[in-house]
């Protein structure tokens, strides 16, 4: 009995710790997000939040739905791997409401040179140009139609 009396303060200390633990557990159950652990050790709702982001690029299938002629022309030329929005920019808004949003084409010279300016690091066989020396002062699309860029018959230099 005397021993118990002498260790009473330790029991009080243990009590304080226990109280702290209980408070922590209560706090924990109140504040952990409900969806935590649903798919793994993370907040499950994050997946929905991340998937819900609006898209900026419509994707070439959306373009080809309304513009099948351009799509067909492109599919037979050297630019068949170039998707529409690669040159025309992100157009999901235009695909959702074609009348309201009009795409604006960037400046031709800058646009073509983005890919075709001469650079020794580009793969061999990829068509590259020194631009000014090849075209004189004409814009690229004077001879190369972007949707089918092979040299037009009759426009040979």
């Amino acid at each position, binding site marked *: 009995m005397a021993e118990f009396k002498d260790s009473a*303060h330790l029991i*009080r200390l243990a009590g*304080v*710790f226990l109280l702290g633990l209980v408070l922590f557990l209560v706090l924990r159950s109140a*504040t952990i997000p409900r969806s935590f652990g649903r798919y793994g050790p993370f907040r499950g709702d994050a997946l929905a939040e991340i998937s819900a982001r609006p898209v900026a690029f419509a994707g070439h299938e959306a373009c080809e739905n309304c513009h099948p002629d351009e799509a067909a022309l492109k599919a037979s030329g050297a630019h068949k791997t170039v998707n529409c929005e690669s040159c025309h920019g992100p157009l999901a808004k235009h695909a959702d409401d074609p009348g309201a949003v009009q795409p604006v084409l960037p400046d031709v010279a800058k646009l073509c040179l983005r890919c075709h300016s001469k650079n020794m690091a580009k793969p061999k066989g990829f068509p590259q140009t020194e631009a000014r020396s090849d075209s004189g002062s004409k814009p690229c699309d004077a001879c190369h139609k972007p949707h089918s860029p092979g040299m037009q018959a009759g426009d040979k230099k």
Partner: protein
Amino acid sequence: MEGFMYPNEVELQWSILIVLYPFLTGLVAGAFILASLERVFRVEEVKPTYRLALLTALAFLIVAPLPLQLHLGHPERSLEMYLTPHRASAMAMFGFVYLWYLMAVLVVEIWLDYRSDIVRLAQSSRGAKRLLYRILTLGSYNISPGALGIDDRVGWIITLIGIPSAFLLHGYVGFIFGSVKANPWWSTPLMPVVFLFSAMVSGIALVLLMYMATCAMRRVSIDMRCLDTIAKYLFYTFVIDFSLEMLDLIHRIYEADESFRSLDFMVHTRLFLSQILIQIILGTLTPLALLSLSQIFTFSVAVRRRIYATAAVLTIVGIFAMRWNVVIGGQLFSKSFLGYTSYKVAFVTREGLLSAVALMILPFVILYLLIKILPPWQRENGVVAEAHGDD
């Protein structure tokens, strides 16, 4: 920037505050180990510093999370580490190691050691202080020899558990760095051990300086037997720490893996001042030389005190430089091993120099308060005697 770095690597992620954090927890571990020398290993000579070492450890441990909080992008979410800790993450588990060490080891040990003083002060003081002491007693005023005997036994067990806990506290910080396989400057199994021994070195040096400083402030003569013993342990620990760092260095130079050329260049250029001059020459070789001299030759008290104080100051500066070299150094080179960036310490921002300096001063402010509330020394009839529990 020099050479090539991945575009996202140019900006450093972990700032001077993250340098400060292992420095502070290291001091805690080191101070505690020194205290445990007396309690567990019965090294009687260092008894005068027992309570001071414990309070120093507590002051620094309280401040330790603050640099982390200032660094976080969302400090208001930091509780998540306790609510949904990711068990694979060393950083998450460290939150619990910290909590364990603070509450179950340090606070309990201090409480048990001071309990008789707390009870006496609860009965003798007035006003707000009286309330504070009464709360600290937890309502128990039993300071009979039986109760105090139990306190002593339990305290001994706590200290015994505390030693591996202190190792875990700072070894874990080393593991946080040492387990990052992406960074060859950090990734080594030696990292926790090196961190731990450098922590012990810095902690012992700090307590040595605190003891000398508090003796001067109290106008009390220094117990030279105590001081000599602390210096002896500082020396031994330093020899081990130095050997470990040399082992790491020699191993790197010898194996010379793909990262070596890049790291070597970094040490000789970007880290020349902080690593070669400050950490190695000033912070390791000089104090080691000074301490070896004091171990080999006999000097007068005055000379020994100067040697110890100088060695301790240089040691602490050197260990801070070591933390800098690990944390900042690990981010100065590119993981492509083809380039380097530089770190410009901001001044007034959240993670700037001003915050770092304030955080380094804060533990001393807290220590001052702790000494006021829980005096390590007793005044009996005008004679000041070192108090240690009730023995």
